[in-house]
């Protein structure tokens, strides 16, 4: 292992996370290859969201290192604002900016962070709205949209930055059942286009169908890692078996 980052887009090594006295991540080594769709499943409290949030340093590892494109992003000297423009994240609770229209939500970072001019930002935003199937919602405020539409706007907002990696943190968990599919479809489209994705989810169908690799976490550790079909059909670890028997 010469270059610590390797060819992987994200690489984690010996990562631990404590919240106070609570040891949430207990030594994780993981790399995410370009073009892969990594699905992280596991019981609640197993640390999967924390793991995901450490990939863009929303949570700082207490111990261990994280590389993005070979660059150590746990190094204090790394410009995280710059790194984050290459990593999109979508949250369970959408986190759209309620005081801005859909258009405003998408263009604000394009203009203020990437310094695009207003026209170019608007064009990109329109293209992403189209991409997410919501071209007519540009001037609506988040409160005027359904949960599924809001989440697709949130995906469009992240995509407009042209990220190299997309992180999804239980993005369908806050949605009414009938709205889940439209968001999953959008994510599947994204995967088909070759986007590198890390997806924390409870949607087993999506994991099996779209994931190129599945990780099962329990108690702050990765207990199983492999192709989704293999894990679903033939789980090796007892905890995985137990979990899958409950959710399938």
């Amino acid at each position, binding site marked *: 292992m010469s270059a610590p980052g390797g060819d992987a887009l994200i690489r984690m090594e010996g990562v631990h996370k404590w919240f106070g006295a609570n040891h949430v991540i207990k030594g994780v080594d993981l790399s995410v290859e370009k073009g892969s769709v990594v699905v992280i499943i596991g019981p609640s409290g197993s640390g999967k969201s924390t793991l995901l949030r450490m990939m863009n340093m929303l949570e700082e590892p207490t111990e261990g290192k994280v590389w993005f494109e070979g660059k150590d992003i746990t190094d204090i000297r790394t410009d995280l604002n710059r790194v984050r423009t290459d990593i999109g994240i979508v*949250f369970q609770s959408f*986190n759209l*900016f*309620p*005081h801005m229209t859909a258009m405003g939500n998408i263009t604000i*970072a394009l203009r*203020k962070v990437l310094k695009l001019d207003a026209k170019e930002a608007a064009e990109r935003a329109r293209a992403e709205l189209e991409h997410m199937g919501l071209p007519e919602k540009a001037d609506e405020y988040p409160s005027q949209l359904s949960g599924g539409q809001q989440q697709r706007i949130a995906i469009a907002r992240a995509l407009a930055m042209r990220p190299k990696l997309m992180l999804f943190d239980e993005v369908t968990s806050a949605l009414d059942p009938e709205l889940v599919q439209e968001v999953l479809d959008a994510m599947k489209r994204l995967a088909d286009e070759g986007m590198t994705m890390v997806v924390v989810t409870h949607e087993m169908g999506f994991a099996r169908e779209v994931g190129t690799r599945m990780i099962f976490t329990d108690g702050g550790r990765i207990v199983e890692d492999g192709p989704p079909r293999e894990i679903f059909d033939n789980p090796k670890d007892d905890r995985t078996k137990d979990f899958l028997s409950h959710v399938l």
Partner: protein
Amino acid sequence: MKTRGERIREWTSEQTALSLGLLLVGAGGVAVFFVGTILLVWLNGPTPWESLLETVLSAAQGTVLNLALGLGAAAAIAGFASYRRMPTKAAREAAVSGAALGVQAVLLVGVFYAFRKGENVALTVRQNFNFELLGEFGDAFVNGAKNTVFLAAVGEALGIALGLVLALLILSERVVVRAPARAYINFFRGTPLVWQLAFGYFGLKLGMRIPISTYQTAALVLGLNAGAYSAEIFRSGIQSIERGQREAARSLGMSYMQSMRYVILPQAFRRVIPPLTNEFIILIKDTSLVFVLGLTLEGRELFAVARDAYAERFNATMYIGAVIGYLAITLPLIRAVTMLENKLRAGYR
């Protein structure tokens, strides 16, 4: 959508004779009190104060009070006794409203009675409702109101700017940044404004010979004081914004300051409009304390004008003049802010 006429007809059809009667009697009690009193004062003339006193003590005023009391008590007693048995919701609401109005009429009459039967009602009227005297000070009061508005507006503008900076400082994770801001806020919140004004005047202007006018000193100290209170308001506003908003902004590559400026503060501002208005209204009234600085004649605000006029005529009606001035400023302000709030809310919630 039903038209106004349709809604009124529907409402009327759900009323009973008793419920309508209760509403009318209760409203009548309040109406008799106000209309009767105002009419008598108007007929007899509000000035000179002797005629006002005469009206207050007159048999006609006594009749008005007794009538209002009778109507109010009847509506209150009958309303509360019968509202549970009303057949429709509209009828019950009418009965309860009639009873509530009745109670209000009784309370109003009670207060007026107490005033009328007071030990020295003549002195009260002469000292507080001698409106004739206000006339000659009209221009002074208008000028005073201008100064009150100006001092409060400059103080609030300074206070908002300072408060915003202080709020960001006390939210810092670094104790060396937080501590001085915290000390400033606690000091200005913990000491009387009247002392701060006096110290600003004697300490800074006279003692240290800082070349600012007394008027500027007043505006500056009001601003320094308002800054401490506004800081706490902004802090709570900023902290009330969900953590996810900051996370979303930072994840898009925004710096701390960018996330504040474009995402957190615009939302926080809307949330702090009510407490900030409250603070502004308190500041408007606090301008009355700048009398300790001894402003020049044209620089005097409402309260100082009233004090001067009182010193000249030994009549407290002058303070009523100031009160009218304060209300003329604060009531439209409250109304304007309510409208602004509704407009902002219409945008996204």
